[in-house]
């Protein structure tokens, strides 16, 4: 039996990109099921996504932020009994052709979570700005310190999860800037995490959710959240 694979695409005001993202996913592999989580967009994202007829579109009645949107995807994947879930940004910076690279180690059951990284080896394509790379370095150091693992691209939102990780994250997922915190959460709870090198594109349209003054708030909030997560007890799995 073929494994059921869900692609979770969180989208907030992505009317320009969402259609191409869905089409690229379905072209890469028609067996992928696409789930767009429209996080209370104020533009035409909902209609654009629905008009393709190729994706299930969840419309959240109000804006939850990226964490809440992605978690909705995990809940859906859990209820619908998917074997694997891929988190894939709705802004066009991830490449559908890279998904098999992420899935391969999961399908061999070597790990539970696989993160697509721009830094694990020097890849072509977009490498982010200088300041952001410094931030990402800080996270790498913290990952080493807190869970003794080498995760070079904590902020990457291009990830693959197996069934057990899906079930865990459907119940426990951080809200505001979830990516680096989730690495610690999963590491702390003994999930096997690895990175594979992937290429990313520069965003196609829209603006990043983090810029300017927000960056300082971002770093402080995320570092605090990582420290807190590392010092919490393990969560009992059912």
């Amino acid at each position, binding site marked *: 039996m073929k494994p059921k694979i869900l692609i979770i695409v969180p989208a907030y005001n992505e009317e320009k990109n969402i259609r191409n993202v869905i089409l690229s996913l379905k072209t890469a592999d028609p067996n992928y099921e696409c789930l767009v*989580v429209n996080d209370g967009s104020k533009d035409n994202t909902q209609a654009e996504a629905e008009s393709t007829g190729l994706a*299930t*579109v*969840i*419309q*959240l*009645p*109000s804006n*939850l932020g990226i964490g*809440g949107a992605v*978690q*909705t995807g995990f*809940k*859906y994947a859990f*209820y619908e009994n998917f074997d694997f879930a891929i988190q894939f940004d709705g802004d066009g910076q991830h490449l559908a052709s890279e998904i098999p690279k992420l899935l391969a180690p999961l399908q061999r059951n070597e790990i539970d979570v696989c993160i697509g990284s721009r830094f694990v080896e020097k890849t072509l394509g977009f490498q982010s700005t200088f300041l952001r790379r410094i931030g990402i370095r800080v996270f790498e150091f913290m990952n080493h310190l807190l869970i003794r693992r080498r995760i070079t691209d904590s902020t990457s939102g291009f990830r693959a999860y197996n069934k057990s990780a899906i079930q865990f994250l459907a119940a426990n997922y951080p*809200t505001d800037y979830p990516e680096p915190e989730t690495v610690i959460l999963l590491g702390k709870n003994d999930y096997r995490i690895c990175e594979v090198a992937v290429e990313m594109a520069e965003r196609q349209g829209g603006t990043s959710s983090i810029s300017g003054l927000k960056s300082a708030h971002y770093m402080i909030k995320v570092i605090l959240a990582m420290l807190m997560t590392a010092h919490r007890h393990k969560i009992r799995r059912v």
Partner: protein
Amino acid sequence: MIESSLELLVSNRIQFFSVTSSLFLFAFILRLVKRKRLKEEYSLLWLGFGLIFIALAFYRPLLEVVANMLGIIYAPAALLLILVTSAFFILIQFSVVISKLAEGNKNLIQEVGILKAELKKIQQTIKDKENNEKPDV
């Protein structure tokens, strides 16, 4: 003689004022709970601090005792400390309650979103089925 009686009046007036206002606060909170405008659980801190205020208002030397205990030389400063502490506790409780509300709210939004999508799917299936069952015209 006149001066001392005036002093007594002034000091009694402040006691009268503090006793009535602390009793009023306590009664007001109780009334809110009775009318279900305030949950019992969240009224406890208010009632607790209300009782402290009442005790301080009725028995004035208590403030001196408390101030002495805390090593505060100027007794009214102890009053200020008690007030600020009570406000702090109540505000922290608010933050905790808000966090809990936000978590519940998030879960509701997620489930409503998923349910809506599922409902849409089911409606579409029913529609397709009905269309198929209709004889071709």
